[in-house]
């Protein structure tokens, strides 16, 4: 299933946050969206998944969601959004409960995603016992459990320290290689964007409009830290954003 954004503009009262966006998130690809803070990246993601209504334009799902997909548009949140009173297993089961699955089917899905995210040993742990990286793994496992058509990731690694971030990036690449998923990945971290994105969408500062869409045709597996092409790409993206980021930084809040 593809996701297409057509002539999308969005306002908060009179404040224009997004202007005339056109974008396609093609099946099986990770599209990274980067931009200076306050450019409406997160708003775009909330619009994509239907947590907010666009002021103008529309967002279309093209094609059918895969069979067995319980929740085609599924989020992974920056701050994990795990229920602290439920175990790892309970948190995953929460999102399966509304669908009236049989006990075996539920168990099969839980075991499968825990195995894919290497969490099988932590089934009965509660979020408080887990590190930030583990919590985000649980959140990713929960998202995978509903077999989503598009994963909407809102700065999923921003709350983590840089070492954990590296590990989780490897995990995400591993997950994608085993079973390619479609994703819109919001980040302010250029390194994440060039490591994970098949496409990088650069937004300008508010009102956010698309400045550039960069295709990266290096396979995900070859994008390690030492790859010079990647470093050049990251530099190029940074130059594109630098002035915007600086201006955005100097702006008064709610200006």
């Amino acid at each position, binding site marked *: 299933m593809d996701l297409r954004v057509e002539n999308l503009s969005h306002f908060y009262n009179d404040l224009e946050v997004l202007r005339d966006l056109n974008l396609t998130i093609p099946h099986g690809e990770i599209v990274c969206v980067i931009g200076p803070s306050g450019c409406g990246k997160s708003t775009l993601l909330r619009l994509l*998944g239907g*947590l907010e209504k666009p002021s103008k334009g529309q967002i279309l799902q093209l094609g059918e969601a895969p069979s067995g997909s319980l929740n085609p548009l599924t989020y992974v949140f920056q701050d994990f959004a795990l*229920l602290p*009173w439920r175990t790892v297993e309970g948190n995953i089961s*929460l999102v399966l409960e509304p669908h009236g699955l049989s006990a075996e089917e539920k168990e099969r899905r839980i075991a499968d995603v825990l195995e894919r995210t290497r969490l099988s040993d932590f089934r009965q742990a509660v979020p408080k016992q887990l590190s930030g990286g583990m919590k985000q793994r649980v959140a990713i496992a929960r998202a995978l459990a509903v077999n989503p058509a598009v994963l909407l990731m809102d700065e999923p690694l921003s709350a983590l320290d840089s070492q954990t971030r590296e590990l989780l990036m490897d995990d995400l690449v591993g997950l994608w290689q085993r079973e390619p998923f479609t994703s819109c990945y919001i980040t302010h971290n250029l390194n994440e964007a060039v490591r994970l994105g098949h496409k990088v969408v650069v937004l300008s500062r508010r009102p956010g409009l698309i400045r550039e869409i960069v295709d990266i045709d290096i396979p995900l597996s070859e994008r390690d830290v030492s790859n010079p092409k990647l470093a050049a790409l990251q530099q190029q993206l940074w130059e594109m954003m630098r002035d915007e980021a600086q201006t955005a930084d100097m702006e008064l809040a709610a200006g």
Partner: protein
Amino acid sequence: MSDISTQPGQQTPAPAALDAASGKPVSFRGGGFAPKPRKLVGLAVFVVLIALWELGSRAGVISSLVLPAPSEAFGAFMDLANSGNLWRHLSASLQRLVIGFACGVSLGLIFGTAAGLSSVARAAITPLVSAIFPIPKIALLPLFIIWFGIGEGSKVATILFGCFFPMVIATYSAIDNVDRTLIRMGQSFSLSRAQIIWKIVLPAALPGILSGTRIAASISIILLVAAEMIGAEYGIGAYVLLAGNLMATDQLIAGVAILSLLGLTVNWLISRLENHFLGWRN
């Protein structure tokens, strides 16, 4: 105090023993401000106070008319227990307390949840709560006596009213404080509204709801005694009032001690509930 005075940093070596080459150890100045549980201390305070009181009474320093010895109060308590009146008073009080508290808390939960979830309910309920909450409920007792009679009805109604308002406020503020990202998460996984309320909002609001219950419980004990003092044949409040009227200070102290135990028991029960439902916090 002991936490501060026992810090190892107090024993800094004498500066004379040092010279420039060996350097001076950095003196410790952190620590403290971390109270630890010391259960025996609390018990010891009780024992010492009661022992001093008993000694004072026996030595004649404390007049037995003003403050009877603990042993006399205990004797009065045993008399009460042996005469069978203890159970009569206690059961009358407990019945009022349990009915009033349970109804008040349940109604408060229902109205508080409504106010927490619906804008219309909130707009309707909160001004009413703000207007009635500050009235000392005991001032309404005469009115309740006219409405519900001098018997159980007016006493239960007073307790019910006293519990209801703090419960409404605790519940809707607890719901206000539920992390909105958890609710958005529920929506993003297409959970129904009922499921979001039942599986996310209420469990997340439970800590606030239980601390509201704790407040409601202490208010209901206060109102219980007050209501019983105004007009009741049986009940701990009536017993204490009668003892006061008869200058039977030993019975009075025994009655007050029963009230203290009642309060402690209720608190303990709520702590057990908290441990059971909120174990995930630790």
